[in-house]
């Protein structure tokens, strides 16, 4: 059974239909991408999942049933609009937020120590949050999201506002948690991060599903009839090729409908070309995103 299952969610704010019909399921232990352009309904979908908003229609099943107060302790959430209590000392702030997730103060303090050391914040624990640099606050934010060791981690635009060092820290942490079996849902519109991290995705636009499934499968489905080739020397004339365009340091060959990639490979081999690269030309997620959203 899926860890999170969202079915035909709808939510309107006055005249604005923020979520019109969104459905997806997230399996245990996977990194799932919730994608869409700005204003597509990603954040509202997350808030509906977390019971912050009540849906107008549709259902959410999370950890085998509807959301309960007890289940909130098993979920870590890093919203896009995030912050900490500026007037509190760092350690007290993180312990307080952890106790709201069901940890005792003693456990929270014990778990916090290695995180503070790992993120190089141990010597700043007594400082007020407002006295920390922005980068330090970002790291503290990441700690507060995972300190209670959640089973599900939901991160809305997780790398938004992070400097490159903290972006890498956050990625490493996500991958580490993934290895430990934590289910991760990340919402973003930065496609290369999704390609790097996610197993499966749902792409929503104007509040509706437009793409959903395994990332590799989606890319295959959206691939054009083309191959990318790099040979040592000049590319010979090949039958069945409609166009040749440069693609990075290789060439992309657009094939006619009757010609298969295997036939192109056979032609290259038969002409004794030294093949350095031969691959089916799969579109990047960026290209698929732009194509699908433009069609909408």
């Amino acid at each position, binding site marked *: 059974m899926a860890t999170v299952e969202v079915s035909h969610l709808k939510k309107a*704010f006055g005249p604005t239909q923020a979520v019109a019909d969104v459905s997806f399921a997230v399996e245990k232990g996977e990194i799932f991408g919730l994608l869409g352009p700005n204003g597509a309904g990603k954040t509202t979908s997350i808030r509906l999942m977390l019971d912050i*908003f009540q849906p107008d229609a549709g259902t959410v099943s999370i950890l085998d049933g509807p959301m309960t*107060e007890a289940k*909130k302790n098993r979920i870590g*959430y890093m*919203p896009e*609009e995030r*912050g900490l209590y500026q007037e509190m000392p760092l350690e007290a702030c993180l312990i307080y937020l952890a106790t*709201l997730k069901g940890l005792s103060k003693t456990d929270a303090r014990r778990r916090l120590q290695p995180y503070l050391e790992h993120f190089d914040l141990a010597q700043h624990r007594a400082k007020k949050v407002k006295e920390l640099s922005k980068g330090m606050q970002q790291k503290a934010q990441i700690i507060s999201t995972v300190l209670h060791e959640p089973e599900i981690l939901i991160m809305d635009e997780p790398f938004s506002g992070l400097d490159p060092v903290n972006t890498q820290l956050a990625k490493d942490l996500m991958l580490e948690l993934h290895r430990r079996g934590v289910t991760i849902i990340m919402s973003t519109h930065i496609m290369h991060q999704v390609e790097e991290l996610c197993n499966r995705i749902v792409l929503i636009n104007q509040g509706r599903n437009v793409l959903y499934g395994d990332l590799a499968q989606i890319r295959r489905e959206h691939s054009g009839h083309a191959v990318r080739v790099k040979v040592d020397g000049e590319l010979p004339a090949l039958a069945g090729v409609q166009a040749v365009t440069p693609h990075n340091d290789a060439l992309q060959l657009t094939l006619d409908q009757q010609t298969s990639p295997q036939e192109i490979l056979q032609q290259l081999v038969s002409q004794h070309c030294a093949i350095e690269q031969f691959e089916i030309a799969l579109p990047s997620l960026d290209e698929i995103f732009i194509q699908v959203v433009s069609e909408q």
Partner: protein
Amino acid sequence: MSKVWLVAEQQFRKDVFKRSFIVAIVAMPLFLGFIIVMGLLSARMQQQTTALGYVDPGHVLTQQPAASNDNVTLTRFASAAEARAALDAEQIDAYYALPADYPHSRQVQLVVGSQLDNAAVQAFSELVRFNLLAGQEEQVAARAQAGPEIVILATANNRALPLGAPGLGLFLPVLVAMLFAFLVMTVAATLMESLAAEKQNRTIEIVVSSISPGQMMAGKILGVMGMALLLAASWIGILLAFAWIGAHVLGWGWLQGITVNGRDLALLILVLVPSFLCLAALMVALGATVVDTQEAQQIGAVAFMIIFVPIYLFFLFANDPNGPLAIAASLFPLTAVTTLAVRSIFMEVPTAQFIASALVALVCGLALVWLAGKLFRANMLRYGQRLQLGRLGRKGAKA
């Protein structure tokens, strides 16, 4: 520990362990102390020494009373001419001339240089009265010397107002109302600022992903209430200590023998509780609509002024304590407690009006709690934006 208590403890610590709380504890007693000291200073500055002369050819004023006003000196002159000369030489401020047949005529002439204060007139009257009563029995003389005790009995309003020095107990409801106003505004303003700060810090979404908005609100209210009760206990303790020292150490008469009208106080508390609910809910509702803590403070100040409107209208209510304006202000939840307290000085406000006022405040309070909940849920994640009330119905109903 319940998450509600965690939020309450956090809120309590945040509000109590800061400098402004200590300032708040001492602010009210300091304010009252300042008023009292200024009053005493003002009275002392108005006191002036008056040199008064008198001419008494009939030898009526032969004895001096034991207790006399230290600020008035009385000098006997042998003749009107001597007294006049002293007045012209500004050795005295005025003189009384009693004719030789004063015991029969009871006529006295007063000659004044510029003006004469009441204390001097009273001192001379006491001298005359003391001498005229010299032949009377001691008790009769003492009673006549004390003068009349006038108490105005307002039979229609069932109030007895002693002329001269009404007791502090008469003003106790107003003191309670003022204490209530300070407390409710402290609670409400703190609550409103706390909610605005959650939005401003962007912590609210993190918190409501851990607990429900209702739990968060309940925790905050409990925490702020705890702070307010500590503040109230501190204020009351300081005021009681002040009253005890004033009455028993300094011997201030106005702090002695204070009588409390139990009925009025009990009925006032009946109105006070739902009014508190009403005002707190109003502040939460307003807190949900403001953008930042600065705006919250400004709105809180306006609400504070509204509560004190009946104090500004004190003399209007004194003239007509049961008039339409007084009754209307008694029924309006924001002004009910202070209006009823002011009216209670001048009349026995009917029990039915207290009950009606309490009911109106309760209904408004419950409606405002409902509205505050809707506004809060609808607006809690609208960072840096004001809520458009026109959208509340649709939005709040579903959020």
